[in-house]
């Protein structure tokens, strides 16, 4: 035990002595948490809309006023030329164009089905489908209004009201969703990168040889090396949770102890990954690349930005070996929904299995003798 204490003491001294490390470990995560949480939203409001109203009738103006009244749209241009507006769309000034054809009102009066044209800038495909959805629902709303005026009896036969409830996040605040995810990201990066690079650094400088001739035991070395980063990552997690509460008003609905207990196990998996990377690399540059390679894939697949269920089967298969996915799901469940230990048992088991196997693999791979 004494030996471990000396290693840990040395590690902490080295970490805190590097003037640039402190802000990186303690300030950067905070900035990241705040900035990321504010940037990460898919919400769409104030779509920049252009209107071409060729009909200039009461009905067409009514429809246009519906768009004006909607919080989702911001009318920025009226024109009689589609080409002109399309040019503006190309410049990026317009996101959507609604074209009302000449005999729009006449068609309604004759009982025909009038057509309107909706042109959407679809470079961002998902935003485009959302914008189109908003447009269609406004048109549909207006449609219902016409029907009510014309055939009050008939319309009344079709009324499925759909009252809805958003549970756990009634305001649909995207930050609620992102904050736990980003916390996961933070502890993962701190754990995997710092630990992996730290050991490779000793290899690169040559001090590892000096350590290897000492009677230091493998487990002492590994514990001494990993524990400081385990502590730092746990500290960062606590710090992040406090910030989440103070700045974003997000607090843990479930058990705080459960969060920290599972985080403690999860970190073992991450540190094991870092250690493993360090055993198969010779330089910090290589270690960093390799850690990056895994991290980028794992993070993207983990469901940080996009739901894992929507991914293709092969990606979901890949996700079964992705530790971040489990922890991400666990954190969101417990923090946002207050899930109890039983509901997240699957995740806990997976994380534990992962931690055990990753750590054993890394310890087995780590050799003092070559």
């Amino acid at each position, binding site marked *: 035990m004494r030996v471990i204490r000396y290693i840990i003491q040395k590690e902490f001294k080295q970490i805190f002595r590097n003037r640039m490390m402190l802000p990186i470990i303690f300030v950067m995560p905070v900035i990241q948490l705040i900035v990321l949480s504010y940037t990460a939203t898919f919400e769409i409001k104030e779509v920049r809309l252009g209107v071409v109203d060729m009909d200039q009738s009461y009905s067409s103006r009514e429809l246009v006023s519906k768009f004006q009244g909607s919080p989702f749209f911001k009318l920025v241009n009226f024109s009689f030329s589609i080409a002109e507006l399309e040019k503006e769309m*190309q410049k990026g000034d317009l996101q959507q164009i609604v074209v009302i054809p000449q005999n729009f009102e006449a068609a309604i009066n004759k009982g025909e089905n009038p057509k309107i044209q909706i042109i959407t800038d679809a470079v961002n*495909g998902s935003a485009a489908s959302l914008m189109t959805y908003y447009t269609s629902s406004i048109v549909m709303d207006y449609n219902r209004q016409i029907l009510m005026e014309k055939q009050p009896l008939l319309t009344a036969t079709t009324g499925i009201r759909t009252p*809805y409830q958003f549970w756990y996040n009634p305001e649909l605040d995207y930050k609620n969703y992102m904050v736990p995810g980003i916390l996961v990201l933070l502890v993962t990066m701190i754990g995997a990168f710092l630990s992996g690079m730290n050991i490779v650094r000793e290899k690169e400088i040559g001090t590892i040889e000096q350590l290897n001739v000492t009677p230091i035991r493998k487990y002492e070395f590994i514990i001494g090396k990993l524990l400081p980063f385990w502590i730092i990552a746990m500290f960062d997690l606590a710090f992040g949770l406090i910030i989440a509460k103070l700045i974003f008003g997000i607090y843990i609905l479930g058990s705080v102890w459960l969060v920290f207990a599972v985080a403690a196990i999860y970190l073992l998996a991450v540190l094991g990954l870092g250690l493993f990377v360090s055993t198969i690399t010779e330089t910090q540059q290589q270690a960093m690349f390799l850690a990056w390679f895994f991290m980028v894939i794992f993070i993207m697949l983990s469901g940080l930005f996009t739901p894992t269920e929507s991914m293709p089967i092969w990606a979901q298969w890949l996700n079964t070996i992705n530790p971040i996915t489990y922890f991400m799901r666990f954190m969101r469940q417990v923090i946002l929904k207050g899930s109890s230990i039983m509901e997240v048992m699957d995740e806990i088991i997976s994380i534990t299995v992962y931690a055990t196997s990753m750590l054993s693999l890394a310890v087995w791979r780590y050799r003092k003798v070559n």
Partner: protein
Amino acid sequence: MKDFIIKEFKQIFRDYRSMIILFGIPIAQVMLFGFALTLDLNDAHFAVLDQAKDEHSRKIIEKMDASSYFILDRNLNSREEIQKVFEGGVVREVLVFKPGFSENLDKTASTELQIITDASDPNTANMMLNYTQAIISNYEQSLLLAHGKQVLIIPETQFKYNENLKSVFMFVPGVITIILMLVSAMMTSISIAREKEMGTMEVLLVSPIKPIEIVIGKVMPYLLLSFVNFLLILGLAFTVFKMPMDGNMLLLMAEALLYILMALSLGILISTVSNSQQTAMLLSMFALLLPTILLSGFIFPIENMPSILIYLSHIMPSKWFIIIIKDVMLKGAGLKEVWFPTSIILFQTVLFISLSIKKFKIRLQ
């Protein structure tokens, strides 16, 4: 000079692990973004609390299950179960049909269908609600049509620049931007920091090679690597994802070269302020990578961010480069249309280079 560049190349290429990653990351990322990460809804699990169990409720459930957006997970028996299934995490939406759903609809012409979504993921919750409502409206309309001829305004939708709403059109420019930044800025900064850390930088500095030659020698291999990566991703975009190329290929390549130069000079600047590989890496990671992903409009639309972040995004070269790629590739823009973002990147390149030179001189004194 030539020998020096050759040495740099050898050092990079000898290390096969780095090579695999250098070319593996872009391919893996493009594939991931292209295939795995859709912001669209796909097979979202929903549950049903059907207290009516009649014609219309069954038909609506069938329609939901048949759509590609939803998949029926299970039937619930009581309201208490709703919370339980949500806490389990798989089911994200519950439809509640009250008793007499069809009867009310057919006789009193008014009925209620409650939609409860797990909004801990607000984006998905919102999409689910939208799609569910759309399915129900559709069902309503089909009922309407069955009643006889009705006036229906038919919206004809046209998606410009990306007819099939592929998210990959959005992601490819983003991935190009990230990879070029990663390879160019991050690699250069770390490789120079490495020479500093190992003490070999001083050997180079006292040699008859001029500082500018050292820098060029350091930067050349990464310039080439980045450009090859650029072509690789572009190739994938054309062949695998069928991305169009409406603008001038040469213009796009020239813009890419400019952006790479900017990233390289940024990498040099980072290396002059960091004292070890570790700090260079962490600095690059936090100062380059995250802003490149977040403040460039790559994944999240900039317009909806708080205004301070919008201002911040204006100084992100990545934002301007993404605009350039999209405009040239998807909208067929020429230099006339993209001169503004181009000149911003050009200005930044000059700025970073002069700052590095200034820093470098101070160090030598």
